[in-house]
């Protein structure tokens, strides 16, 4: 039986196509990419904001700047080149993001809980998240669902989704495609033509009611709700024994 993390990693891997250039973070996105590379997408090119292109780390990197990402990578470039030429230059197909809060438009908050000037919780901030959200052609959001995380309105929009303060990406002239999928531990949300999240898949045994109960806004549900495929035994073995043998992220 797959854990929630395993399901999320598996489901995210399905979104990746062979040959995609992917901007990767640490944790589940990294695992999803490695799973895709080990299965249907051997030509996936993983780029880290630290500057490593085409990394094939011999160990699971603990940080985004692990030395194992450098050794045997295809190229190591400055961060200016990563952000300016690769990301802003429109060379990144897929970006991954998560955060402390997400709203129905796929806006993400990784900055503060509470008011900015006097926060209840000070979070790490944007890092490269804002520019990933602006520029990646397809954005995959990965977050565990709870009413605390899936909120009516983000306390702070660190990384823009489809609609911010009443304005759409198109109105704002934003280059990237915005959130394509919001992959959660209960199911998967897509975004409709207005930019709003719609529940399109649930994991086996999960009901739409359970998903709604973990969501802070009245959730749109697709007319035809699919059940997400589950990772098979071989995939689980791959994840557990080869890709994350120490269970750092699963």
């Amino acid at each position: 039986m797959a854990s929630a993390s395993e399901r999320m990693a598996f489901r995210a891997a399905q979104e990746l196509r062979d040959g995609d250039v992917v901007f990767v973070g640490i944790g589940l996105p990294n695992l999803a990419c490695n799973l895709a590379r080990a299965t249907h997408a051997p030509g996936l090119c993983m780029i880290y904001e630290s500057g490593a292109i085409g990394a094939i780390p011999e160990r699971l990197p603990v940080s985004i700047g692990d030395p194992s990402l450098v050794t045997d990578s295809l190229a190591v470039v400055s961060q200016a080149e990563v952000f300016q030429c690769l990301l802003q230059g429109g060379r990144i197909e897929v970006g991954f993001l998560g955060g402390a809060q997400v709203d129905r438009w796929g806006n993400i908050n990784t900055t503060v809980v509470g008011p900015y000037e006097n926060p209840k919780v000070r979070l790490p901030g944007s890092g490269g998240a804002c520019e990933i959200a602006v520029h990646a052609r397809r954005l995959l959001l990965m977050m565990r669902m709870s009413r605390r995380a899936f909120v009516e309105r983000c306390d702070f929009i660190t990384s823009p989704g489809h609609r911010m303060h009443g304005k759409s990406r198109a109105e704002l002239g934003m280059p990237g495609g915005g959130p394509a999928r919001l992959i959660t531990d209960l199911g998967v949300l897509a975004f409709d033509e207005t930019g709003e999240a719609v529940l399109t898949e649930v994991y086996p045994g999960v009901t739409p009611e359970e998903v709604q109960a973990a969501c802070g806004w009245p959730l749109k549900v697709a007319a035809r709700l699919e059940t997400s495929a589950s990772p098979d035994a071989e995939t689980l073995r791959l994840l557990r024994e080869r890709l994350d043998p120490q269970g750092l992220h699963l």
Partner: protein
Amino acid sequence: MDKRCSMKEAIAASVKTGCSLVIDGFTHLICFAAGHEIIRQGVRDLTAIRLTPDLVYDQLIEAGCVKRLVFSWAGNPGVGSLHALRRRSEAGASSRIALEEYSHFGLLSRFLAASAGLPFWPLDNYAGGDIARANPEIKTVQCPYTGRTLATVPALHPDVAILHCQRADQEGNAQVWGLLGSQKEVAFAARRVIVVAEEIVPTEVIRKDPNRTLVPGIIVSHVVHEPWGCHPSFVQGFHDRDNEFYVAWEEISRSPERYAAYLDAFVYGVEDRKGYLAKLGAGVMDRLRAKPRVCAGVDYGY
């Protein structure tokens, strides 16, 4: 010109109370030795600038050296929070630290502008979100060709940049491989550059492979030889990142008492980096020492 000196001398000559400072390096090549020496010298009211204020910036904050933090991602990567920073930035904090916040690309662009001698840098960013709303330094400009509105950030010239590298000569020609961070941009942006090197090599070694030079000596003021000066960060080809320390730090830094005890033992309680390493112990250093993976050279003949 021989620019070599001790870390003590370089910091005393360059890092003054009230100045602005970058210790650069992205995960890689973060010079903890410089941060510790700044703490020991009791420098105050620093504007501390860094994309990712790592543990060393948190220590500067805990030690009371920092007035203002300019940053884009503040955390203990893959582990947790920077607790000194959180204690001084969350509701109810008595001695609140001033924060000036960007995304990575935004702060990097401030260095890019300064390194290029321009007063601002344009970037296609920040539309719609709240980062620009929270930071009045982020403005906009209109493209004279397309009419599009782009974000801008102003040039940032730090008073001092401290850059660790694998090797440098006595004039500060510094060679780096592995992750480059924003070291080059910071070096050209700064008013004064301190190069700290894992190895000091004869200039002939630099000249044998000139494409490896990241920072030319002509913009460097001081050269410090400080092997293992980056621990617990790492130096590709020399030693690994001490991930165990980064994990253990979460618990140490949560408690003001344990934090103080750490600083007493490893910063105030030692004279210099040699003292730190003696306290760290040969066991840790042996565990982290790199296993060699030497690449082939290339041919510069003609």
